[in-house]
């Protein structure tokens, strides 16, 4: 696993960043949440985002696929500006259709799973390929079966989300995102709604994805995962990046007071 990863990593580092944020600001009315975020996520990198509750981690993640609109700064994915088109030095807002088209390439996994409760597991996975990409149902079903197999749930294909455990639901949600063959995966605390004994299964699926060279931005409280799988780690507090670097360095030898006090609480 480690060997495939390191080889793919060297291939990736030469490329342009997958996600690039320059001075990203976001407010909700008077509440200034993101106060100038600068960071880069390289292709095939596992990029971990940690920080106290309310620091703006989810908000930043949601900006990346334009579920939230950035107020200032530049945010781009794979070289394309999020939510805007640049033409002759002017920015044009994208139409809903164009925003939707860009989102196809970005998978997202939510803290609360957000599976479609009126569809079975396999229908959840098939939905976007059929409805968005226009894939035939039989082809989509075949691929969905493989994806469910990959996350270890081939026997739950016909189950409705309400009949699955939290860990199983989250793995279906990952399969659902993967069905669109994204180039970037966003994870928003994918294990924090799970019972402790179910966390491992989900993390295993994510490790497997990382080993396959998927670019991942992961908001997490699982420091063990960050240390083991992460390539970079950013500590955010109060809407700014306080500290960043290799996970083992930041977690093992934090430089800033705020990082130290946060880590002393969670480790």
């Amino acid at each position, binding site marked *: 696993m480690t060997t495939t990863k390191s080889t793919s990593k060297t291939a990736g580092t030469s490329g342009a960043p997958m996600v690039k944020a320059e001075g990203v600001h976001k407010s909700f009315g008077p509440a200034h949440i993101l106060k100038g975020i600068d960071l880069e996520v390289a292709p095939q990198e596992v990029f971990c985002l940690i920080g106290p509750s309310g620091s703006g981690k989810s908000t930043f993640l949601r900006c990346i696929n334009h579920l939230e609109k950035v107020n200032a700064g530049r945010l781009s994915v794979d070289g394309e500006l999020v939510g805007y088109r640049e033409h002759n030095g002017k920015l044009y807002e994208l139409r809903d259709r164009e925003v939707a088209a*860009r*989102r196809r390439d*970005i*998978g997202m996994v*939510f803290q609360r799973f*957000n599976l479609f409760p009126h569809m079975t597991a396999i229908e959840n996975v098939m*939905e*976007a390929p059929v*409805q968005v990409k226009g894939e035939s149902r039989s082809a989509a079903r075949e691929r969905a079966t493989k994806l469910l197999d990959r996350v270890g749930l081939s026997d739950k294909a016909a189950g409705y989300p*309400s009949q699955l455990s939290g860990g199983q639901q989250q793995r279906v949600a990952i399969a659902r995102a993967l069905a669109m063959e994204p180039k970037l995966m966003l994870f928003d605390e994918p294990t924090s709604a799970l019972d402790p004994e179910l966390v491992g299964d989900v993390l295993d699926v994510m490790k497997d994805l990382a080993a396959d060279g998927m670019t991942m931005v992961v908001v997490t409280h699982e420091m063990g995962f960050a240390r083991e799988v992460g390539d970079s780690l950013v500590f955010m507090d109060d809407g700014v990046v306080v500290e960043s670097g290799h996970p083992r360095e930041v977690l093992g030898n934090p430089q800033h007071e705020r990082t130290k006090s946060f880590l002393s609480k969670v480790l």
Partner: protein
Amino acid sequence: MSVDVDKSDRSPAGPPPPPPSIKAIPVRHYGRWVAAVVVIAVIVLLGRAFATGNVNWDAIPEYLFNADILKGLRNTLLITLLSMIIGIVLGVILAVMRQSKNPVTSTVAWFYVWFFRGTPVYVQLFLWFNLGLVFQYIDIMPIYKDEWSDFMTPFLCALLGLGLNEAAYMAEICRAGLNAVDEGQTEAAHALGMSHGKTLRRIIVPQAMRVIVPPTGNEVINMLKTSSLVIAVQYYDLLQAAQNVGRDSGVVVEMLILAAAWYLIATTVLSIGQYYLERYYARGSSRQLPPTPLQRAKAKLSGGFHRAGGAA
């Protein structure tokens, strides 16, 4: 403490022997017996009053399938169905309009609901009937031109009066349904690259249906009965037919009872349909659906005897 002792006593002994079944005198429900006696007495008295009263009972089966009555019934069912279709389609559109980011659209929807919910449907029917005082001609330029009174038939009056009124109520029901769906569902669909329209159609509406269907079933049943108000616009519905036949044949009360019977039959059929529709839209929402009455009856017949005995 004592619980701990019990446990440690039992666990090394392996599986415990089955406990002896409890022998106790069941609670006597005297209230149920009294209620049953009272109810039976009332039914007997009422039945006798009606049977010996001045009602020609034979007329009811005789006219049950009378051609005029059946025509009225057909018209009632037709106007109910068509008004509900108008109501549901327009209601969904209004509900989506209410949620629109476009302020013009949402305001128009708000005013529509405000007006049609704020006035009695009976008054609205009269208004449609008398709109000829405002518009003398209908003139849809190249296609159609006619005198208003010829265009606005009783059927159209009834349809517009009931359908447009219903739309206002359906709009509120649909809005509640759409709002009941978790926001995370929209986000998940958008994150997968689904458009607004697809998200609405594939993800939101099917889930909203669970909230929308039960009150809509009530609306259908209500509409069936409310449709008897179309007598105001001289539409030939079941009630009108029953009254006409009754007047012509001198069996006025009998025909009213007959009409009531037909309304009851129709609402009963609709209730059964509603039950199964609700089950359909509840799929995936609960781990296991409750049994249908048929399944329950079978279960009772096979296993419920001693329970019935205990209750008696």
